């Protein structure tokens, strides 16, 4: 049993090391010294408070999308739609911030946060409903919904709420009272209240899934749908609930981006946070604590490779994608061991 517990922690660590190693080899192949690459990476991510702040800035949305994928996964569903859900949530927050500019309440940020959640939850609901009631596979539906979200938010940005003062594809600014406090201003990134919100949501997610009756029912549905059904759980309701919650949590990225960082919706602000959420959740073993840790890792990688971009000749920030891909592949290669064992027979 003890060995099993160790294995649970070791496997992701091994995967990370494997991924990093191969990535560094690729860096070597591109003409850089792998050791100095590693140093720049680590330094860039954690070297100074400035760097740490940037790392946390990237970590925050990854925590949200990672939790989103995790919640869906605990119910046996694959949420590839976090990208669309986060756009939906972000735009909902933007809309509230623009339309209710005259609202003078101190609760304004809270209202905007709720809007963020609801926007994402709505997008998640579509996928959940289609799966539960029509039985159509959530993977393809959510991919389609992603593109639809991009289209709709782009249209809204350019035609309904455009920022007339600039050529940038972005909306007007939201009213100041909706913004959340920032903790640390740097040139590029703001660590703001949303980071703590993300941690809070991680704790809430853990609590909901493992300490409440409803969370239990959701997880039971994910583990054994037949047993859940026979015990009286309404499987359809659980699936829809899971997607609604997953969508809502993904939507909270809007808090980080709109209410925290930019104050407006910029087309393309998300460097595929949604897809990265899948990697984060996978590496984090679909548990909230793991998600936070692996979000931190991926955030660090993201920041570190930005430094690599500046400080080396041949490496650009695209290397972070390579690292992430290799880590994911290393995690999925667990099947490699059983394959080898099978062949030995």
């Amino acid at each position, binding site marked *: 049993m003890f060995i099993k517990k160790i294995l649970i922690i070791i496997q992701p660590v091994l995967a990370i090391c494997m991924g990093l190693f191969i990535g560094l080899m690729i860096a070597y192949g591109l003409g850089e010294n792998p050791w100095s690459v590693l140093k720049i990476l680590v330094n860039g991510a954690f070297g100074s408070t400035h760097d740490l702040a940037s790392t946390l800035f990237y970590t925050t949305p990854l925590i949200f999308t990672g939790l989103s994928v995790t919640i869906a996964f605990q119910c046996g569903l694959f949420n590839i739609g976090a990208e669309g859900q986060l756009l939906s949530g972000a735009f909902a927050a933007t809309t509230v911030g623009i339309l209710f500019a005259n609202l003078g309440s101190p609760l304004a940020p809270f209202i905007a946060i709720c809007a963020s959640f609801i926007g994402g939850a709505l997008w998640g609901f579509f996928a959940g409903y289609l799966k539960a009631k029509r039985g159509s596979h959530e993977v393809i539906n959510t991919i389609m919904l992603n593109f639809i979200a991009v*289209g709709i938010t782009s249209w809204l940005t350019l035609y309904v709420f455009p920022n007339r003062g600039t050529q940038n594809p972005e909306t007007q600014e939201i009213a100041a009272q909706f913004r959340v406090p920032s903790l640390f201003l740097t040139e590029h990134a703001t660590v703001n209240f949303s980071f703590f919100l993300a941690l809070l949501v991680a704790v809430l997610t853990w609590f909901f899934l493992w300490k409440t009756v409803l969370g239990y029912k959701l997880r039971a549905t994910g583990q054994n749908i037949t047993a859940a059904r026979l015990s009286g759980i309404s499987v359809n309701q659980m699936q829809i609930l899971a997607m609604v919650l997953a969508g809502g949590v993904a939507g909270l990225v809007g808090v980080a981006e709109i209410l925290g960082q930019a104050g407006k919706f910029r087309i393309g602000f998300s460097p595929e946070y949604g897809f990265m959420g899948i990697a984060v959740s996978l590496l984090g073993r679909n548990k909230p604590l793991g998600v936070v840790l692996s979000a931190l890792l991926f955030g660090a990688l993201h920041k570190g490779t930005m430094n690599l971009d500046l400080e080396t000749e041949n490496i650009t920030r695209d290397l972070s994608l390579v690292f992430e891909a290799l880590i994911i592949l290393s995690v999925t290669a667990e099947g490699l061991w059983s*394959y080898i064992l099978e062949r030995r027979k």
Partner: protein
Amino acid sequence: MTIEEIETYCLQLFNSTLRISIPLLFAALGGFFSERSGVINIALEGLMLVGAFASAAIAYFTHSPWLGALGGALIASFFALFYGVFVIYFRANQIVAGVALNMLAFGLIPLIAKVLFDVTGSSPGLSIEDRFQIMPVVLIILLIVFIHFWFQKSSFGLWAKFAGEHPMALHSAGISVFRVRLFSVWLSGILAGLGGMSLSIFLSSAYSRNMTAGRGFMALAALVFGKWKPLPTVFACLLFGFVDALQIQLQGIVLWGAEPVPVQLIQILPYVITILVLSGFVGNARPPSALGLPFTKS
């Protein structure tokens, strides 16, 4: 508008549709081979981009679009093979591995571009002799003809169908399910690579960053819309291509009211239609029964 103007307009539209559909057609037919034998191919997007970049780069260095196309297809197929081994033999989750492969492609390509060309975002422009004028069109027509009239009636075609519908039956008949699936995935790589090739050295004159713009996923949508059959998929690709061509033509034109029809809303049409089809609102889309499920001999 005069009759002539309408004529030229329609001709232009027809032309654009065909051209824009070509990359989609390649990718969707590639997806057809893969999904028919039971392997979901989310990585079409990345494979296309690999093909686009590789063929542009090779065409630049060798001044031959043919070598570029060949190289692009083969390199993309190599990536696909890698993906195939992971999901078929190691039984990795197909979605996750597909997403990872996309990320890998999107990450590696700019890095290699930097080494080769000093910029990450594009490859150097190709002169007109180094590009294709008509070859991909011919190729795609030949391909469609081959698939419809020949492949569907071949032994392998039958085996691939069973690999996707009832792999156990195929296994009992003495055929290796793994090999059939791997070959299909490899093929999908070749075709996706050719799709990318048609983007970079046919429709334009170089590779540029993210030039696939979601076409790999749209190809999947076309495949679903076409209910995993070749001819309806071709029709779906043409339809999506038409929508694309239309919105380019419509840009700025006022249809009703004072506002032009927003481009973005037209662009999302293919995706909306796909959801409706998949959810059974329009006809009955039934994927191959074993799609996405790794095969275990016991």
